[in-house]
């Protein structure tokens, strides 16, 4: 008899073709949403990542970027339809990565694009691997890959998302030298800071309620153990994101937990991780599958 921990292994979920199609559709929508209309950066004074390898400032030329953005409008539907993903998804991944690298080469590293780029690049690698070594029973084709290739690409996306959260959890432990939980009461200062940031970003507009801006930081600072109890589950969720790879339901539960963490951060700290939330909804929680399962159960109960 296998013990429970022997079942803790990466499992590739067999998604139906319509699920894979929905995932590509939603991802394409997020990619388009995150692609800026223009790129205002004419220099890369603090080059990082891809910008170390190439001068990406050509993206700031409005006519050039308009053409590149226009080509994305061709690549997106092709990717959604599963046509030539090596080219269509490859183009989208390269364009967004270049834009993100240039944006992050201004001396202000943001984190709203990395995971999206990593997911598209991981998917592209999965398609490339499937083209080089086709899954059993599938013909080798670059134009219209078999469903198994799309399945591999989705698994690669899940792997990348889970790995990013686990890495984030380890970063907290490493950077704080294991003292992250002990330091948590000082998160009250971060709350004061993030609310001040939003206040000055949109100065003149109505801000967050006083309960969040002043009362909550005071409460957190005044009750260190309550704070540790409330925020430690976030770290455990990140480290436990690995469990999302063990199956469909596990992915859904982990996804809901991490989404809850992001929603809480949005409410309490006015910090949004929009792309992270969408990626969790698309690949972990898988709303179309949830709806379909709920409908099936409801019909089963009604029959």
């Amino acid at each position, binding site marked *: 008899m296998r013990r429970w921990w022997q079942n*803790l*292994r*990466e499992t590739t979920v067999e998604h139906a073709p319509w699920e894979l199609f929905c995932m590509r559709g939603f991802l394409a929508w997020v990619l388009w949403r995150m692609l800026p209309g*223009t790129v*205002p*950066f*004419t220099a890369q004074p*603090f080059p*990082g*990542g*891809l*910008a170390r390898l190439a001068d990406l400032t050509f993206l700031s030329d409005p006519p050039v970027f308009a053409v590149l953005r226009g080509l994305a409008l061709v690549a997106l539907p092709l990717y959604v339809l599963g046509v030539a993903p090596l080219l269509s998804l490859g183009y989208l991944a390269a364009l967004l*990565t270049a834009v993100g*690298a240039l944006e*992050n*080469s*201004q*001396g*202000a590293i*943001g*984190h709203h*694009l*990395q*995971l999206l780029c990593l997911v598209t*690049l991981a998917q592209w690698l999965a398609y490339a691997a499937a083209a080089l070594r086709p899954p059993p029973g599938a013909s080798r084709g670059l134009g219209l890959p078999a469903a198994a290739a799309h399945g591999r690409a989705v698994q690669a996306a899940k792997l*990348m998302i*889970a*790995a*990013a*959260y*686990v*890495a*984030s959890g*380890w*970063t*907290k432990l490493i*950077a*704080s030298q294991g003292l*992250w939980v002990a*330091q948590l*009461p*000082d*998160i*009250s*200062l*971060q709350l*004061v*800071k993030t609310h*001040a*940031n939003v206040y*000055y*970003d*949109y*100065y003149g507009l109505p801000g967050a309620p006083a309960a969040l801006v*002043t009362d909550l*930081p*005071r409460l957190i*600072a*005044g009750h260190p153990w309550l704070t540790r109890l409330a925020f430690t589950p976030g770290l455990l969720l990140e480290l436990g994101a*690995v469990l999302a790879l063990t199956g469909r339901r596990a992915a859904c539960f982990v996804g809901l937990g991490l989404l809850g963490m992001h929603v809480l951060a949005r409410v309490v700290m006015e910090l949004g991780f929009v792309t992270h939330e969408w990626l969790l909804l698309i690949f972990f929680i898988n709303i179309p599958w949830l709806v379909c399962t709920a409908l099936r159960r409801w019909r089963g109960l009604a029959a």
Partner: protein
Amino acid sequence: MPTAVWKRLPFARLTAVVVLLLAMGEEFPFTRLPMYSTFDPRADYYYVADAAGTPLACEKVFGTSTANVKKMFRARLGALAALRGADEKTATPAERRLAGEVLLAELRATGARRGAAVPAEPVQLRRVEVRRAETAGGFARTEELLAQK
């Protein structure tokens, strides 16, 4: 032998990707996602104001956030201090003022390219430090003018 061990690891591929992300650091598109990985007993935030010290809505006026303004200032200050083998923590007031002026000029230029309503008059870069305190509502703030341009 190493291959056998690798195959026995329950999440071998994920482990490899996590190690890669931690090793690569902040080299786009790689990231360790270091946000809120440590908490100091003090925090600071920055804002941009007009010459009279009245805050300007940073997103509207410059098309970027005050969080970005802080990161950009620190990167420029670090680069300036590095010229004499120092770091931002030991930067001189003159270096802080110069880094602030450079940043304000860049904010104006980038904001204009974004189509934002950048003011023609001089603007100020201000920094606020927050500490926990027994009085003053639990937190004490000190504010300084870094630069005006």
